[in-house]
């Protein structure tokens, strides 16, 4: 060697990679060539360039001729390949069993996957806000808690509490009766008009607390300006398409060019507990020359949200409020007492909990319910459990059939661990196949499932690390558990004795199998009895007398003060249509939300009662068929009635006001600043104007010509199509600017129990799946057991046992297991369902019938399954069975 100067060394990773993939025969020359080449390049070029070239040429060796041939010479690879081959052959040999396994696992994985995605979506509400963990809503907790608190509270908290970093107060634009108002917005330049819902007034700090992605303009700045409006992206699109609308003017309810578009932000994600279409600033409101008590401390009429400094315990702030706030509130000693005593108070609700855990008055949108999610989750886990148990049970039952195979393998030198690996791989092939199939099924079921649970899951969300890990781990867990028992059991025999002709006197693992069978039945019974109880409750709610008529009533809604005159015209026009009976104008419809204010009797001013209010016309009692127990209903022939100083109460209000013979007595209605004094003229029987989730609360009814939003009309169901046609005609004639739409009162009330109905449908499906899987599993196991016991049965028959005796013998054990399962499942189910029923004020109760039906059903089903599968063997001629061998 002439020149022994040191060599440049190429990237180590590269040479390692080469050694890993390159054929041994070619490795030396290729390595040599690359190294030599690298030396030349390094001499001439900078290091990075040489490295790059080195890598370039290295990757050019990734060609078939240079790559190691996999599995050619490796024992391990050959062995693993044989496992897969055996697994495949095994699956093909038992096609029935394989398809049942796959079906069961696919069903379970699909159900679990869909419900998992649903739960994940439902629990992800409002997590998109920056610092979402530190944002809280202030709720007012009294005997009828509500989301709304006074407007000045937010900024007072920021200035006087060091823990409160930012705060915002906002409110939806409410119409009369505190229904969310619909605003007519017009872009006059292009003459485009839309009815827009979800308009909000918000403080300038809105975008400091909540995170919205700006698209045009600067939203934070926008809220500083009078008459500036921030639009959501979807709303902006409706008016301006894809153009930048900043600076354009919009008309508000016919007030020409009142608003200027100052910014556009992205719509809130679906998982938000509120969303706005357009937003005006309180700055705009305050610029108006009116001193609205709404903006004072007296009106609990705004949504207040605070952002605390990171990691602050909200209870610290909560506990300071009762001693701080009385200086602002113009309250009686009594009220302040009970505030300080903690009987009533302000609560900070974590923003991310609002969707699932808050269900108080004035939620911005209907929230979800945590207890239903638990039902969904538990049901899904039950199905998974049942399916895993099936898989394990059938695999263990089949183990005895594979005794010879294991014997041969062990004689040829297989280790125990290799037997286990083989069994695991066979199970893994099935579970992973099921997993892959279930992804397809999930894709297919995405929309039906969303319709079923009113969800918004997207299957592509499945491809997240944790979800994939969870599913893969479930598949692996299922496979390993099902492989564990057979391999341990079969490994326990000595190879020699197996081959010499060891006969298993009985199938091993029956204790384990029976135990698992019991667990399966427990899950099934809980599911079935649960869905029956839910059904009972729904039926109970449907059948319950609400205290008013809900059938054959049509509701026409025209929200907005501008229409109060027109709704009167509409009423008189509608009355002329034949087939329309009584009609009534009201501010709120039973089943909807009601505003509430305090009341007190003149004779007892200390006793204040919060009462819902409903503005009604003279026909409300006859239209809704309300029963008047005392006095009379309102009527505009009396001047006091039409002036709004005559009141009708319900029985609960009378009871809570603690007044005898209320008719004719003076009552004060505390409408914030305005104290209305009037006479009680009548009392109506209690009726369920709210959903049956809550008890009946006090209500006060009075007249107010400007507050009617809804027209309720009784119709003759026999000529409904003609009536609707005529109503539409009149409607478009009187209010052409509003799109005609109508609802039926009974279906609107039914919507209050949508969540129950959905849960019922889901649990029925899941119960059906669980019955199918449990019976299928039982069928599979019994058919294997029977095959093992053919000889025994035949001998019994020869000795004179009747088919009935033998059937009983085979059934008895499983019926006993079922009985034990029932004993465990029924108390568990009762506790669980009682817990669920406690969500309702009016409960159907837990019916023993449900459990009777479930028990008898399960026992019969098991008996039937076992008898069906065994009857052939039992009926067969014992001589034939005994002669073989």
């Amino acid at each position, binding site marked *: 060697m002439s020149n022994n100067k040191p060599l440049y060394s190429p990237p180590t990773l590269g040479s390692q990679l080469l050694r890993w993939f390159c054929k041994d025969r070619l490795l030396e*020359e290729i390595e040599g060539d*690359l190294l030599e080449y690298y*030396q030349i390049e390094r001499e001439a070029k900078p290091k990075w360039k040489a490295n790059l070239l080195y890598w370039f040429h290295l990757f050019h060796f990734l060609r078939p001729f240079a790559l190691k041939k996999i599995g050619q010479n490796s024992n391990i690879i050959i062995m693993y390949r044989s496992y897969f081959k055996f697994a495949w052959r095994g699956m093909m040999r038992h096609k029935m069993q394989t398809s049942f396994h796959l079906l069961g696992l696919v069903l379970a994985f699909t159900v679990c996957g869909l419900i998992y995605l649903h739960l994940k979506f439902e629990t992800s509400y409002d997590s998109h806000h920056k610092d979402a963990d530190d944002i809280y809503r202030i709720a007012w907790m009294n005997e009828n808690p509500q989301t709304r608190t006074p407007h000045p509270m937010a900024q007072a908290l920021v200035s006087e509490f060091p823990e409160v970093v930012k705060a915002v107060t906002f409110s939806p634009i409410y119409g009369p009766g505190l229904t969310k108002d619909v605003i007519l917005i017009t872009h006059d330049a292009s003459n485009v008009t839309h009815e827009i819902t979800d308009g909000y007034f918000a403080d300038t700090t809105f975008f400091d607390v909540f995170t919205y992605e700006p698209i045009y303009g600067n939203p934070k700045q926008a809220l500083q300006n009078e008459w500036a409006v921030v639009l959501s992206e979807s709303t902006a699109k409706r008016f301006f398409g894809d153009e930048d609308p900043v600076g354009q003017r919009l008309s508000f309810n016919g007030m020409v060019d009142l608003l200027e578009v100052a910014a556009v932000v992205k719509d809130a994600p679906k998982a938000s507990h509120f969303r706005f279409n357009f937003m005006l600033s309180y700055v705009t409101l305050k610029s108006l020359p009116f001193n609205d008590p709404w903006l004072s401390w007296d009106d609990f009429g705004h949504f207040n949200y605070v952002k605390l400094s990171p990691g602050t315990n909200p209870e610290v702030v909560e506990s300071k409020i009762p001693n701080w706030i009385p200086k602002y509130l113009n309250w009686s000693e009594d009220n302040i007492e009970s505030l300080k005593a903690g009987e009533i108070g302000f609560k900070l609700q974590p923003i991310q909990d609002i969707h699932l855990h808050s269900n108080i008055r004035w939620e911005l949108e209907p929230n979800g319910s945590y207890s239903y999610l638990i039902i969904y989750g538990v049901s899904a886990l039950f199905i998974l459990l049942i399916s895993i148990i099936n898989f394990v049970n059938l695999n263990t039952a089949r183990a005895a059939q594979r005794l010879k195979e294991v014997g041969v393998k062990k004689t040829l030198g297989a280790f125990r661990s290799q037997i286990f690996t083989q069994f695991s791989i066979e199970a893994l092939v099935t579970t992973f196949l099921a997993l892959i199939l279930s992804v397809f099924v999930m894709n297919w079921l995405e929309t039906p499932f969303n319709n079923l649970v009113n969800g918004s899951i997207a299957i592509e969300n499945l491809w997240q690390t944790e979800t994939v890990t969870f599913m893969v781990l479930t598949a692996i867990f299922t496979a390993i558990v099902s492989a564990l028992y057979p391999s341990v059991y079969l490994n326990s025999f000595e190879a020699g004795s197996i081959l010499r002709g060891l006969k298993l006197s009985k199938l091993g693992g029956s204790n384990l199998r029976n135990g698992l069978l019991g667990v399966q039945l427990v899950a099934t019974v809980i599911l079935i009895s649960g869905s029956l109880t839910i059904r009972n409750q729904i039926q109970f709610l449907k059948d319950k007398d609400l205290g008013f008529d809900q059938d054959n009533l049509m509701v026409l809604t025209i929200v907005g003060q501008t229409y109060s005159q027109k709704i009167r015209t509409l009423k008189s026009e509608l009355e002329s249509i034949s087939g329309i009976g009584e009609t009534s104008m009201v501010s709120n419809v039973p089943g909807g939300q009601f505003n509430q204010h305090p009341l007190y009797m003149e004779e007892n001013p200390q006793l204040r009662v919060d009462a819902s209010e409903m503005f009604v016309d003279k026909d409300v009692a006859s239209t809704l068929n309300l029963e008047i127990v005392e006095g009379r209903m309102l009527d505009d022939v009396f001047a006091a009635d039409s002036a709004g100083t005559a009141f009708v109460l319900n029985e609960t209000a009378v009871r809570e006001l603690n007044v005898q013979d209320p008719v004719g007595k003076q009552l004060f209605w505390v409408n914030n600043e305005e104290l209305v004094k009037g006479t009680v003229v009548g009392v109506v029987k209690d009726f369920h104007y709210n959903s049956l989730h809550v008890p009946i609360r006090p209500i006060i009814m009075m007249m107010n010509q400007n507050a009617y939003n809804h027209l309720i009309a009784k119709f003759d169901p026999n000529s409904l199509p003609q009536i609707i046609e005529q109503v539409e005609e009149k409607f478009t004639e009187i209010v052409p600017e509003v799109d005609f739409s109508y609802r039926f009162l009974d279906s609107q009330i039914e919507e209050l129990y949508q969540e129950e109905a959905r849960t019922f449908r889901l649990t029925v499906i899941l119960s059906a799946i669980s019955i199918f899987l449990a019976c299928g599993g039982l069928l599979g196991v019994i058919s294997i057991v029977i095959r093992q016991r053919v000889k025994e049965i035949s001998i019994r028959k020869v000795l004179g046992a009747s088919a009935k005796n033998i059937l009983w013998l085979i059934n008895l054990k499983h019926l006993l297991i079922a009985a034990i399962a029932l004993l465990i499942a029924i108390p568990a189910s009762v506790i669980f369902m009682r817990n669920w029923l406690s969500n309702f004020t009016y409960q159907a109760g837990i019916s023993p019938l449900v459990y009777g039906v479930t028990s008898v059903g399960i026992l019969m089903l098991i008996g039937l399954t076992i008898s069906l599968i065994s009857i052939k063997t039992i009926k067969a001629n014992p001589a034939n069975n005994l002669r073989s061998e």
Partner: protein
Amino acid sequence: MKGTQLGEFEELVLLIVGVLYPEAYGLSIREEIINQTKRKVAIGAVHSALSRLEDKGFLKSELAEATHERGGRRKRIFTITAEGKKALQKNHELRNSLFNQIPNMALKLAKLV
């Protein structure tokens, strides 16, 4: 046997192996190809062609002495076999005969264009 045809690049490599005799190995072949034809060739491409030619029996190889600049690794020196020579000759003749069959007119016209 399928695959005893000589591809264009294979023919080039085979020729260069002849040219470089007795010093033809992967890297030197690549260099020669670049020098003579101005084509850009990856080392891997050359090795791949060499291994194919060897499979077809047109080349034979043996490992030579280890050298320092190769980090003590040996080169594989390639030489043309009788089969290889025959294949080259066949290609050469085929090409010459085809070229000679082109009418003069055709070549002249091509020049004019």
